[in-house]
C-alpha cells in the first residue's frame, strides 16, 4: 500500500510543520487525510469541518500553497508525488494548527453593508423580480457565496492593505446593489468605495481563480467601481 508524506502546520502564527505518514487510499480527499491524522496519529491536531460534502465551506485550508475546500480536493489531484503540505487559510489570524479566526472576515462583510435592506412589509405582496433582467442575472451569478473565506485568503491586496474589505464582502455588496428591492444604494456605495473598498482591487483575479463556487468577485468589484464612478461624477458619493 502506498503512503502519503503529509506536512501539517502546528502552532499559531509561530509554529512549525510536523510530518505524518498517512496510508493512501482510492478516492481519498485531503479532509480524509486530516481526519486520519487526528483520529489515528495525533489527537491534539485542531481543524474545522462540518458537512464534508462541499456545502458549508468550513473545511477550507491551504493545500500545497493554494486555498481549497479539503473535502472536495482529491488527494490524486494535488499530491502526484505523494507529498502534501497542509496549512491554515492565509490572511487570517491562526487560533491553533489549521483553525483560523474568521471574525475579521465577517466584520468586513458587515462593514461593506452586506445585509439586505428592503422597504416592503409582510402585509404587502411579494416583490416581482424578472429572473432574466440584467440586474437579476448579475445577482444570480454572484449570490451562491457561502462565506468560506477561500477568496479572502487568496487575495494579495488583503495581505497588503489591512483595511481592504476583500472579495467576499464586496461581492455580497454587489449582489445587494443589483437587487432591485434594495433601498440602501447610497449607503452601500459609501461603504464600498475608497481605499478600503473596491478601488483597492487590482484585478489579480486570484479570488475568481480559486472560488469553489466559481463566482467571480472581480466581476462584481468591477461593477462596484463603475457604480462608484457614476455616483462620484453626479456628486452623489
Amino acid at each position, binding site marked *: 500500500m502506498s503512503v502519503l508524506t503529509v506536512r501539517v502546520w502546528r502552532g499559531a502564527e509561530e509554529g512549525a510543520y510536523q510530518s505524518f505518514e498517512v496510508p493512501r487510499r482510492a478516492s481519498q480527499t485531503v479532509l480524509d487525510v486530516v481526519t486520519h491524522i487526528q483520529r489515528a496519529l495525533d489527537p491534539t491536531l485542531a481543524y474545522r469541518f462540518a458537512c464534508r460534502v462541499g456545502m458549508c465551506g468550513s473545511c477550507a485550508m*491551504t493545500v500545497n500553497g493554494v486555498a481549497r475546500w479539503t473535502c472536495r480536493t482529491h488527494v490524486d489531484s494535488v499530491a502526484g508525488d505523494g507529498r502534501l503540505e497542509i496549512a491554515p487559510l492565509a490572511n487570517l489570524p491562526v487560533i491553533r494548527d489549521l483553525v483560523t479566526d474568521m471574525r475579521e472576515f465577517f466584520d468586513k462583510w458587515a462593514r461593506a453593508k452586506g445585509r439586505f435592506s428592503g422597504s416592503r412589509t409582510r402585509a404587502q405582496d411579494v416583490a416581482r423580480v424578472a429572473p432574466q433582467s440584467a440586474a437579476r442575472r448579475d445577482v444570480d451569478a454572484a449570490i451562491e457565496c457561502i462565506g468560506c473565506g477561500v477568496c479572502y485568503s487568496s487575495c494579495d491586496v488583503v*495581505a497588503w492593505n489591512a483595511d481592504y474589505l476583500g472579495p467576499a464582502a464586496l461581492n455580497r455588496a454587489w449582489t445587494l446593489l443589483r437587487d432591485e428591492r434594495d433601498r440602501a444604494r447610497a449607503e452601500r456605495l459609501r461603504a464600498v468605495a475608497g481605499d478600503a473598498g473596491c478601488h483597492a482591487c487590482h484585478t489579480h483575479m486570484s479570488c475568481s481563480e480559486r472560488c469553489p463556487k466559481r463566482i467571480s468577485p*472581480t466581476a462584481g468589484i468591477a461593477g462596484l467601481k463603475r457604480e462608484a464612478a457614476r455616483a462620484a461624477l453626479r456628486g452623489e458619493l
Partner: protein
Amino acid sequence: MRSDVRARNHPAFWAFLAHRLSGIALALYLPAHFWVLGLALHDAARLDAFLRWTDQPLVKFGEWGLVLLLAAHLAGGLRLLALEFLPWRDWQKSLAAAAAGAALVVSLAFALAL
C-alpha cells in the same frame, strides 16, 4: 499566515505583476526621457553628444527594452479597461495571454526595424 508564489501562479496575477513593474520602470524612465529632450532646447552640443552615445548597441538594446515595457504596459492597461468596463464574459480570462502576445509583437516590430 502569508501566501507564497504557489497561490499566485496563474495568468491574471502575472499580468498584474507585468503591468505594475512595467509601470514603475516607465515612471522612472519618463523624467530622464523628458530631461534629455529638453537638452534640445537649451544645449544643442550636449544633445548631440548624448545622441551619439545612443548609437551604441547596448543603448539600442535598452531602447528595445523600453518599447517592450511600453507595449506591455499598454496591452495590460487595455486588458484592464476591458475587464472593468465591458460586460463580463468567460473569454476575458484569456486577455492576459492576448496582451502578452500583442506586447511581444509590437516590440518585435521595433526590433526588426532597427
